[in-house]
């Protein structure tokens, strides 16, 4: 059977989700294999080396860099307080003594008799990593972190902003075609993840931020509305470090696009359940898509076989979404994958797929299809 290699977005009822929770540098892991964790539990911690300040002591004392060691009254490794004298020089006949004070609480890291500089390092900055989602510690990455495992419903979005967040799922629109309007966002939604249909306007998203909503999951958002939110024009899709308070996960794309039926139904199925979401997106080699993870309780777990390795490609019968104009957003089933090249309206010669969209057969370049991975 012919196949086309097109990675798709996952919309899974039940999946084995694993998350690497790693420190940026080596540190201490505080959980053990088999431990049950909840999203806010700390799993590893470390201290980042403190910020550094450089003080040009020789200039301040008006001496040559080579004389700095005579002037220093503290040594490498010493702790100094803010405003503590670290170097001094007696003036003419012992009068007009001049000195240099430390601008910060710090440790002396180095003293250079070439540049006349002293390097001061501030206190280490503690860094902690939490578990992000409820689950079990499956493995330990020595000195770096843990792998948390959970059986969960798992949905990938196409684009998001804001980092990790968590909360209870609330459906605020009745169907997948409805927009989230400011009226849908209520005080009682604070700390929760609200889900809507096709679109959220800038006004409504701003209201969500002001109401301290944990996250918004929606079909579409306007590209040009990102600028007033982020404060800059998003040139390259690398997001996740924005401090917005309300993460946004867009499931379909830019513009007003109905949320896919499967995504909307799955989220509806989990209304009032607790979910972890992450808006972080990186569209580069090693792509990262935003996600919604809803860990399942034992009662919710079923015995269905997982369909994990579906990224092999699109085959006849695959459910696909068309991801470029003129049929953008349409969902259908692949009828045929002819091997010869076809000429498009643009005169581009490409390999195509014949896709059945509600009885209409559309000819679409294979690279303009996205497989909907479902189970």
């Amino acid at each position, binding site marked *: 059977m012919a196949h086309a290699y097109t990675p798709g977005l996952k919309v899974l009822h039940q999946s084995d989700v694993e998350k690497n929770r790693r420190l940026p540098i080596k540190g201490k892991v505080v959980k053990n294999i088999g431990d049950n964790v909840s999203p806010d539990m700390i799993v590893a911690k470390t201290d980042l080396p403190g910020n550094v300040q450089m003080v040009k002591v020789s200039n301040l004392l008006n001496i040559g860099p080579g004389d700095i060691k005579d002037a220093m009254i503290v040594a490498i490794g010493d702790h100094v307080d803010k405003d503590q004298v670290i170097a001094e020089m007696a003036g003419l006949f012992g009068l007009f003594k001049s000195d240099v004070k430390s601008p910060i609480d710090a440790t002396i890291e180095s003293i250079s008799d070439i540049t006349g500089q002293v390097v001061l390092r501030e206190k280490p900055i503690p860094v902690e990593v939490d578990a992000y989602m409820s689950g079990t510690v499956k493995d330990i990455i020595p000195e770096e972190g843990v792998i948390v495992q959970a059986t969960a419903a798992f949905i990938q979005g196409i684009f998001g902003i804001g980092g990790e967040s968590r909360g209870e799922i609330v459906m605020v629109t009745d169907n997948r075609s409805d927009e989230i309007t400011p009226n849908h966002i209520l005080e009682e939604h604070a700390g929760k993840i609200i889900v809507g249909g096709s679109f959220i306007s800038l006004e409504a998203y701003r209201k969500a931020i002001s109401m301290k909503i944990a996250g918004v999951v929606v079909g579409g958002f306007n590209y040009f509305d990102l600028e007033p939110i982020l404060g800059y024009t998003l*040139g390259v899709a690398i997001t996740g470090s924005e401090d917005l308070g309300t993460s946004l996960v867009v499931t379909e794309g830019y513009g007003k696009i109905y949320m896919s039926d499967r995504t909307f139904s799955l989220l509806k199925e989990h209304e009032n359940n607790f979910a972890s979401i992450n808006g972080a997106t990186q569209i580069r080699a090693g792509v990262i898509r935003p996600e919604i993870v809803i860990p399942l309780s034992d009662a919710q777990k079923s015995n269905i076989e997982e369909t994990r390795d579906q990224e092999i490609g699109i085959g006849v019968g695959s459910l696909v979404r068309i991801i470029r104009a003129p049929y953008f957003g349409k969902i259908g089933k692949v009828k045929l994958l002819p091997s010869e090249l076809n000429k498009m309206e643009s005169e581009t010669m490409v390999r195509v797929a014949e896709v059945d969209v509600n009885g209409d057969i559309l000819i679409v370049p294979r690279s303009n299809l996205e497989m909907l991975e479902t189970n």
Partner: protein
Amino acid sequence: MELKSILATDCGSTTTKAILIEKIDGEFRLKVRGEAPTTVEAPFEDVTKGVLNAVMEVEELAGRKLLDGDNIMSPQKNGSGVDIYISTSSAGGGLQMMVAGVVKSMTGESAERAALGAGSIVMDVIASNDGRLPHEKIKRIRQLRPDMILLSGGIDGGTVSHVVELAEILSAANPKPRLGQNYKLPVIYAGNIKAQDQIRDTLGELTDLDIVDNIRPVLERENLGPSRDKVHDLFMEHVMAQAPGYKKLMSWTDAPIMPTPGAVGFLIEMIAKEENISVVGVDIGGATTDIFSVFSGKFNRTVSANLGMSYSVCNVLAEAGLDNVLRWVPLDIDRKELTNRIGNKMIRPTTVPQSLEELIIEQAIAREALRLSFKQHKEFAVELKGVQTERTISDAFEQSGSGQSLVNMMDLDLLVGSGGVLSHAPRRSQSARMLVDAFQPEGITQLAVDSIFMMPQLGVLANIDNKELSEEALKAALEVFHKDCLIRLGTCIAPVGKTKPGTLVLSAHLVFQDKSTQTVELHNGELIKIDAPYEPIKVILTPAKKMDVGSGVGEPIETEIFGGVTGLLFDGRGRPLDVPIEKDKRLGLLEKWSNAVDEYPKNN
């Protein structure tokens, strides 16, 4: 050893491309090309898998055996295997460097030029005078986590303290390499010879320090070679060795793996030298656009890290502005709808334009990506700064001297384009239009595109230093470059000067190989295409009184030019090319220009 066949791969961040070159009837020609997704990322995490898949496609298409299990068969025996296997790589984000120099516009710039010339992406230039406080520099170095750092500063025998101060900043930042937590960050020192001991004391323990000759031994001279070579060595030893599967790949190749842009740059520099011409080459990719130029024998490369056609397409929009993109779109289109469409291309970067409207929008963005990248290139490819030149009183009025751009469009002989949007445009006239609109060549300039983007492989082939093979390999690279790689589009003839709309700017008298003749009268604002194959055409170009086509204002030229698959483009639209902002006027002009070169299908 007589060379009969060469297999070459280029491992890109998304696709691995393989080409097979064979000696057929005494000359080297491209036989077939195959490709497969690159396998650096999970779940494969082994670049050789993608290489083998691409080679398997080549095997199928060429109808002969190249692989024995997971090994490339070498040398060629009884029609199986190949004599040489080589590769380039930009997978895993290529080589990402940070450079440091004492004065940003002097040693800082020289270090940047060396790093770019070696094929790296320069993430930042740290300099003593860059306006940032030491703690800000330290924070930046920590954040970026480069693959390698090139530290320069001071002329030989000059002041030591500034460059040691930079080393102290590096030491305080204690940067960790991007790939692999268990090795020390490679640092190359190419600064004042007198500071070497102090640099060793400051960085020797903490980093993997290499010391090479000063990049700027005296103010008047750059010495980029030793630093560039060291970057290549370290790229192989450290960065590539950390990437998954590269150790295995390195054991397969007959020459060191080169960073992709380094190989392309080498080839362009060689062509310019061989033919004694000025060349500009461009490779527009999904994330970045690389520009290479050789003017007056001086090579320069720039990489515009966030100007590309898919991953960074929105950045083109952000930097150029919507109006600048729209000025190339001969359609009335809703502005907000357009931005959403471009946004959707960014988040789904692998899609292709199915409708004509989508193709037109994509080619409009390409013009702006190319224009902006070339603007950056012109600002970077300059004479050495900080050099004192003797001036006469007349020079003082011209304000020329150090720091002047080397790029002179009137001197440009050949403009070569490559990358998906240029190499795979459905009509070659579209590629020609994109190149001319974006680069705006002046006078007489030949245009070409890389047929299937094989310049990287040919670059590494031309650079093999194995004595037994190098001569034949170089011959093979040049033969394939001229016969199979370059598609000659034709020649652009663009007179420069100020005249009123509609007035005559140039008369041309053409004598073709079959002795037939043609006269062309070009008016201000016009674009005329004359069909002519790639063969010499005698031409007398007579510019109007205030116009210059290469030999001075109003001076005629008698010369030989070449046609190509598009032909001759007479461009009377002026330089700089201004497209009216008013919608009706703009749409009318764009349609006229488009029809003149038969750019898009007529029925739409």
